[in-house]
């Protein structure tokens, strides 16, 4: 279970999921934009609405709705992702692609488990199909996260100290960005230590403020040390 206070987890749960109602829902006509002109006050059976994950949790486990999979996680998108994992701009689809995907899969699997104990057989087939899709999605997510993207992230974070890498980080989801940052912090600390030795460690609140984001601010900005580091760089070459 995610941390109650985890901001990223909360924001990831906002992911909208399409679902269709299994029976009439009273009072909830305002959820479906198509029903506005009709003056109805309830959601008829089978209407498709999009709701965030946190709203669907109870409904799914009580079999009030059939959950579909959002477009970004469906088969086509998945295949594209598997084909070229490092080229895809996951941040554009959803800033927390992996987290939301994980919650989605968890939701589907738990709800299917609970519901299939008591559902009729026809419904059970459909549920199983959805569960199968969910499992495949989980596999895809795992493969994507730990495959090429991870390798590239590690590579870039550890070797591009002082370069502007925003073109790369703009493509990364939140989880990947955190990894990138810890790698970058470690790399800059390493570089600082190599260049300046132990005397660096004195400065706790000043330089550290400049050093957690690798682009542009990889080194503290006092003029003497910049000059010194330029000298060192020239010496290295």
């Amino acid at each position, binding site marked *: 279970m995610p941390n*109650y*206070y*985890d*901001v*990223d987890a*909360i*924001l990831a749960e*906002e992911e909208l999921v399409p679902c269709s*109602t299994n*029976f*009439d*829902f*009273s*009072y*909830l006509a*305002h*959820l479906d*934009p198509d029903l506005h002109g009709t003056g109805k*006050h*309830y959601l008829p059976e089978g209407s498709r609405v999009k*709701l*965030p994950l*946190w*709203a669907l*949790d*109870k*409904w799914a486990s*009580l079999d*009030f*709705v059939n959950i579909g999979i959002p477009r970004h996680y469906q088969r086509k998108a998945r295949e594209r992702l598997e084909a070229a994992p490092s080229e895809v701009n996951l941040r554009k689809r959803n800033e927390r692609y992996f987290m939301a995907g994980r919650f989605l899969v968890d939701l589907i699997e738990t709800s299917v488990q609970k519901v299939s104990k008591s559902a009729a057989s026809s419904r059970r087939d459909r549920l199983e199909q959805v569960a199968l899709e969910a499992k495949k999605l989980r596999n895809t997510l795992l493969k994507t996260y730990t495959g090429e993207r991870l390798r590239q992230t590690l590579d870039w974070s550890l070797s591009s100290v002082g370069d502007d890498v925003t073109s790369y*980080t703009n493509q990364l989801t*939140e989880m990947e*960005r*955190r990894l990138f*940052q810890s790698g970058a912090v470690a790399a800059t600390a390493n570089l600082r230590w190599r260049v*300046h030795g*132990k*005397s*660096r*460690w*004195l*400065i*706790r*609140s*000043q*330089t*550290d*403020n400049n*050093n*957690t*984001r690798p682009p542009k601010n990889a080194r*503290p900005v*006092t003029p*003497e*040390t910049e000059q*010194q580091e330029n000298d060192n760089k020239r010496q290295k070459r």
Partner: protein
Amino acid sequence: MSSQPPKPLGLSVRDLLLELKRGSGGDSAVSDGKNYVLPAYNDILVQTCLDEMNGHLQELEDQVSTVTQRSKEKTPMSVRPSLLLQNAAIQRHKRCLLTYHQVRLNSIQDMYWQQGVASVNKAKADNNQNENLSPLEQEFQQEYHKLIQKYASSLDLDLHSLPTPPLPQDRVQVRVLRDDVFGEVGSMIALESGASVTFTKGSTHFLLFSDVEVFINDGYLALLEGEEQDM
């Protein structure tokens, strides 16, 4: 029920949290304590969220009372989803609001430990940080400071001086940031060890660390890193 236009569920609370993430000046993670700048306490938005939550609560109560009025034994299936949804919305609002405040309080604590007593004193002095904190949060900061002081004095230990490891050399380079705090501008200051210096703004000096440590902690001098410059 109500004929309001369909506002997406949980929009205001989401905006609250997004503001928190944006507050760090870019896209560093919220958990990254070092660079973090708290955005101003968004009282209006918090109030909006509370109002929304109360709205959901009210709707829930209304729907429940309508159902119980019919005095059937079981709640009919068709109303259940709505009840659950309102409940989920209320829980969601609660979670988001609690997280918002929790994150802010944590970052206040982090700031305190990083910048030391200077942050609290500076806050009183130039009102810099204070603009971003609500009055209650400022109170929290003061009380936290007092709490730590009490604990430190009972241990007879200065908790803030611990993280700094001993210096390889006893002299350091410093640059003067403010010269108005040392008495008359341009006057000679006598340091503990007996040396005397004149601090003018922007000048650099090479002094014993024990002498200048106090000034650095208060923010009047800036410590220059790197080795000694042959200038």
